[in-house]
């Protein structure tokens, strides 16, 4: 309780104090510690799990000694549907450089439509649309979805990492609005029953970047309707994709099931969220903070993307990776605080 009293007396914020504690534990001097503490609990990146890192390293080594064939690329793409365990049989699968390539393909194919998304959607969309003078707007009561729109939506939702229920797909079917579903956070959850039968669903995009520390290898899979033929599908059909990345991808999905990360870190997420007064997200990377967490708003990310929005528009989505990475330190901190 001594620490608790000191924290209250000095009006220190537990989350920020823990960030500084990690930084000091890493041996950082003030300026570096300050920088670390400012950014550590923000963003979304994969947990740098040492076992997975080892698997990736082994895969790269094996690839260097493996005759190059297209089998691994095709196996990765073909097996991915079973790995995620979602009803994607009615879609064609092709390789995607992360989810991002799928986004770009969707933008290009629907370039004559107006792009729409909810507040809190991935900033990449906003930045790309703005920078290229593409017609777009947020969905709200004054600006509902309408015929001629193309919808980009994440499931789980980017702003919180949570699954959502809505009738948006029915509405999109009625209004003939093509939908891209960004499911990059899905492998961070325990899964769910998700109906992908809606005719409006044009593209479903997955990536391994958020679940495994392989973001720079750009590993993903895209699902599109059979009648769609674009550059990305062409690349897949002529085996013009990144073989090494697909090789790493197949090794990862062969070794780890889709809920592997969630199963490992779920209890830590629960513990950390309870201690820091966060709402547990469906995605194991995150907790969602109230206004007390405004110092960890999206302001830094907005600056990085050069987007001019009020950070209060978005949820305080807290990235728990520093807690997972320094679990022993977190437990010592928590015990000291509660003792």
């Amino acid at each position: 309780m001594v620490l608790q009293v000191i924290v209250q007396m000095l009006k220190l914020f537990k989350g920020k104090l823990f960030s500084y504690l990690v930084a000091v534990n890493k041996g950082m001097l003030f300026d570096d510690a300050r920088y670390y503490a400012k950014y550590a609990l923000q963003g979304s990146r994969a947990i740098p799990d040492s076992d997975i890192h080892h698997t990736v390293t082994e895969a790269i080594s094996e690839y260097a000694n493996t005759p190059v064939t297209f089998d691994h690329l095709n196996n990765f793409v073909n097996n991915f549907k079973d790995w995620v365990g979602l009803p994607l049989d009615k879609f064609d699968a092709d390789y995607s450089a992360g989810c991002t390539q799928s986004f770009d393909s969707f933008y290009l194919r629907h370039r004559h439509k107006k792009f729409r998304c909810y507040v809190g959607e991935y900033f990449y969309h906003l930045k790309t649309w703005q920078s290229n003078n593409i017609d777009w707007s947020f969905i709200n009561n004054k600006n509902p979805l309408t015929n001629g729109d193309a919808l980009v939506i994440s499931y789980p939702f980017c702003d919180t990492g949570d699954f959502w229920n809505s009738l948006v797909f029915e509405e999109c079917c009625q209004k003939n609005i093509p939908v891209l579903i960004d499911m990059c956070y899905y492998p961070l959850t325990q899964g769910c029953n998700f109906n992908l039968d809606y005719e409006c669903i044009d593209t479903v995009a997955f990536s391994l970047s958020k679940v495994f520390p392989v973001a720079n290898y750009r590993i993903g899979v895209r699902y599109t309707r059979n009648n769609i033929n674009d550059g990305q599908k062409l690349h897949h059909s002529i085996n013009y994709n990144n073989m090494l990345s697909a090789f790493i991808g197949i090794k990862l999905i062969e070794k780890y099931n889709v809920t592997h990360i969630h199963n490992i870190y779920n209890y830590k997420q629960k513990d950390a969220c309870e201690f820091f007064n966060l709402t547990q997200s469906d995605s194991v990377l995150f907790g969602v903070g109230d206004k007390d967490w405004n110092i960890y708003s999206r302001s830094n990310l907005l600056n990085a993307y050069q987007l001019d929005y009020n950070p209060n528009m978005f949820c305080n989505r807290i990235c728990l990776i520093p807690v997972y990475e320094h679990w022993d330190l977190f437990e010592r901190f928590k015990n000291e605080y509660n003792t």
Partner: protein
Amino acid sequence: MNITLEFSAIQKLPECIVYINKQPKYQGPVIDVIHIEHFDEGTMELSIAFTNKKPEDTVVNSTGDIVEDKSFELDRIVIDKYDLEELKWESKYQASNGVVYNKCLFFGPPGEFIIHLENPILPWMLRTRHRYKDDDPNWQEDYNYYDKACKLLEQI
């Protein structure tokens, strides 16, 4: 606190005494790096006296230019791993003849380099920087977090 003084351009074996609050901490030849320690918290005066400079150490040519001299320069002050960098200029050089040179790190004339610091050094550095640049209004708050984290890490 651990204080490291780094010198350069050391000419003709100059000698110095390093004082903290008028108490000598080092006495001897000026060498590239001098380490000293100080344990008392609070304000402190760090001074470096140039002790063996004599008029005959300065040799001038027929046009009055100095061609040889006993001298040295203070390059860096590092305290508890923090390089004072530009804050080393928050100092003065008080020559023995009474002339005071502000922001002078060159030990030419006999005299004493003086800088007023604090132990711990970090809040002094942050406060002083903000006073000049007016760009870090949150330094005190962030320092409190850092300081608390340092103490907490020793404790848990």
